[in-house]
């Protein structure tokens, strides 16, 4: 079953879409879906006051939700979902896939900050760019991403995978500062460049950067050079400098940095 939501008019204020998940819509008929209430700014509104809702049978039992349009002011798309799928044909807003446990989310445009916040499982695929704190726990908590996978085709912001414990994040574009901040486990692969300070304060886990990294924090120590490393779904060809850290945290994490993309790190070879 496929349910499509099209905004009647562009959003002017934040819209909380967290109740519209396959889990919540299961067993509802179109009337029930339309009468669901969500927060639009500080007002409670019925779904059919703001969306054109269409339901079509595609012969599958699983619920597929489609959001059509610009959702850059939306919050919490796919919040806590455990099954089914959500497709956003447009931008996705903040906290897409927060606390997600299963199922899939595909966003065709960009998403804002806190993508896959504290996610436990499932998979997220963003075709555009993502903001900061991908997979990170909400402020103040240290329970980061615990499973599942996130793939971003575009760039991503700062602190992706902060406090991450397990699962994987792959970014095809460039990332900002601090990928893998305070990471405890899991894998982050950045195919593009990193602005710097990769894996700061990491305790464990793996951060792999194929582009340039700016510089390596003084709290990391070079260990070896490896011809290739295991990525998330494929083997990545290097060679890679392998750093261990963060030493100031007694960390045992690994930071893999492509040797060809970072000629300025050659001086580390002398230390081997």
């Amino acid at each position, binding site marked *: 079953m496929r349910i499509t939501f099209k905004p009647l008019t562009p959003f002017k204020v934040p819209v909380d879409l967290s109740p519209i998940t396959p889990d919540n819509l299961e067993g509802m008929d179109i009337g029930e879906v339309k009468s669901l209430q969500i927060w639009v700014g500080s007002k409670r509104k019925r779904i059919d006051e703001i969306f054109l809702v269409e339901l079509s049978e595609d012969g599958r039992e699983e619920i597929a939700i489609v959001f059509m349009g610009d959702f850059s002011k939306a919050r919490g798309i796919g919040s806590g979902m455990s099954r089914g799928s959500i497709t956003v044909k447009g931008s996705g807003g903040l906290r897409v896939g927060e606390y997600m446990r299963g199922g899939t989310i595909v966003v065709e445009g960009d998403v804002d900050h806190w993508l896959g916040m504290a996610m436990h499982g499932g998979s997220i695929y963003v075709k555009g760019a993502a903001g900061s704190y991908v997979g990170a*726990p*909400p402020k103040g*908590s240290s329970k980061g991403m615990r499973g599942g996978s996130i793939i971003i085709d575009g760039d991503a912001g700062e602190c992706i995978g902060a406090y991450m414990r397990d699962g994987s994040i792959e970014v095809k574009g460039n990332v900002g500062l601090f990928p893998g901040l305070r990471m405890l486990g899991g894998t982050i692969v950045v195919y593009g460049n990193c602005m710097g300070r990769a894996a700061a304060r990491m305790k464990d886990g793996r951060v792999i950067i194929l582009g340039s990294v700016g510089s390596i924090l003084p709290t990391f120590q070079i260990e070896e050079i490896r011809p290739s490393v295991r990525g998330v779904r494929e083997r990545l060809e290097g060679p890679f400098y392998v750093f261990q850290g963060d030493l100031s945290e007694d960390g045992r994490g690994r930071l893999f940095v492509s040797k060809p993309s970072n000629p300025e790190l050659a001086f580390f070879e002398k230390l081997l």
Partner: protein
Amino acid sequence: MKDVLLIRNGVVYDPMNGVEGEVMDIAIKDGVIVEAIDERKAKVIDASGMLVMPGGVDIHSHIAGSKSNIGRLLRPEDHRRSYEPKTALTCSGVGHSVPSTKTTGYRYARMGYTTVFEAASPPLKQKHTWEELNDIPIIDKAALTVMGNNWFIMDFISQGRIEDAAIYAAWLLKATKGYGIKIVNPGGVEAWGWGGNVYDLDELVPYFSITPREIVEGLCKINSMLNLPHTIHVHVNRLGMPNNCWTTLRTAHTVRKAFGGGKLLIHITHCQFSGYAGSTWTTLRSGAEYIAKYVNSVDHVSLDMGQVVFTDTTTMTGDGPLEFRLFQSLAGKWANADVEVETGAGVVPIRYSRRSYVGTIQWAVGLELALLVNDPWKIVLTTDHPNGGPFTAYPRVISWLMSSKARSKVMERVNRRALKYTALPSIDREYTFTDIAIVTRASPARLLGLKRKGHLGVGADADIAIYDLDPRKVDPSVDYRRVRRALRRAAYTIKGGRIVIVKGEVVEDIPGRSIWVDVDIPEDEIEELLREVKPRFEEFYTVKLRNYPVPEDMILNPSPIKINPSI
């Protein structure tokens, strides 16, 4: 009409007046309990089959002030899991272990508590404490003033100028609108100013020629010179360390040696945290038996439990070095906030785990204290909110006190090894409703010297809790769940003669009163002392003497208690 209220046919527990489960009526007029009223004009609450007690009194709870706010700031994750949306009558709020101000008031009132004492407020930051207390609705409140590491007090005592120390303390209480003398790790927090601590009653405080023993004895003397309604309120040295029950007993005994028995001299607060035997954390044992034995044999000591509850909470205390030690073992968040000349503070989040050895010992020590101290008038139920757990856990604690079955249920799931080193499994004492009314109402009110609280006699404040629970029909020993549920949400809470809670929901949002002691010392004596103190005061402090006191116009609904000192 609104001010005349009749509570009809309630099953009343009022231990201070010797009422134990009698069915009777209570008449209220103009906010106080009266002999009788004209029933035709009164609003009547039908309390038949319901438990009626005085409003709860919390003797020790960290609800307001600088360190509570640090706790709130430190813990967004604590707020996200517990929030209350606004209603037509009430403000919204958040917080499981460190609730926001409005929520604090509502939650206490929902449990039938009507008077709460903020446990420790540094004088320099007492304006902050009062701003928060002003913002806490419904309940009456007061704050204890921290003095155990105050340079001026320590200097005066060590110079033998006890009268001047007393005048200074009286001025501090007046200036900051404090209620009593709080001592936190005497000397140890001053040592924390250099990153140190003191570990023994007779260890010299660095750079001061004084020992913790002299501080405690000095302030105890001052307390009686000033005729304060409450005794000194002491958080002892070595709190939260193994084998500290001996320090606790020596602290309690030192004031007896100095001033004799016969009357209350010292309140040992959150005694659970200072009731450990065993020399290391791995060999930690309960020291509750030793403490209870001593308390049973003397008449100058009172305690509050500081019960630990298995939950995620936030520890906060003026004992800066204690929080640093806690941070060293937990390695999570740690906030520290030293206060010049006076004290320190620290905040560390903690999760008390049932499975942990230490957690289980801690849980057992609090209950053992409450069950082994024979006279309930010597003990008060607290969790040292939020240190042992949030105050919202009181109904759970009550169910453990009233039912050995409830305790066994928990003991089935705690750390087995730890249980072997506590006496708890062998204790079958169960609190009665009278005992509960004592440890949650009458005893704290008496220990604090609140004459109009904690009882339902004529002339008492009409602060009353009514619970949907018939003590004649429910056996708390068996049906402890029912008791717990009823105590969580009062059927009615009456505060100052107004019905504020009905069926656990706020029906009227009124401000409570602000209580402090106004010690009547001749102004010229204070002025003379301050003239002498001023140069040093302004050398040590970063604020002028004139900007230090809490102006009275900052306080909402002031309700000072006049005290005549004997100096």
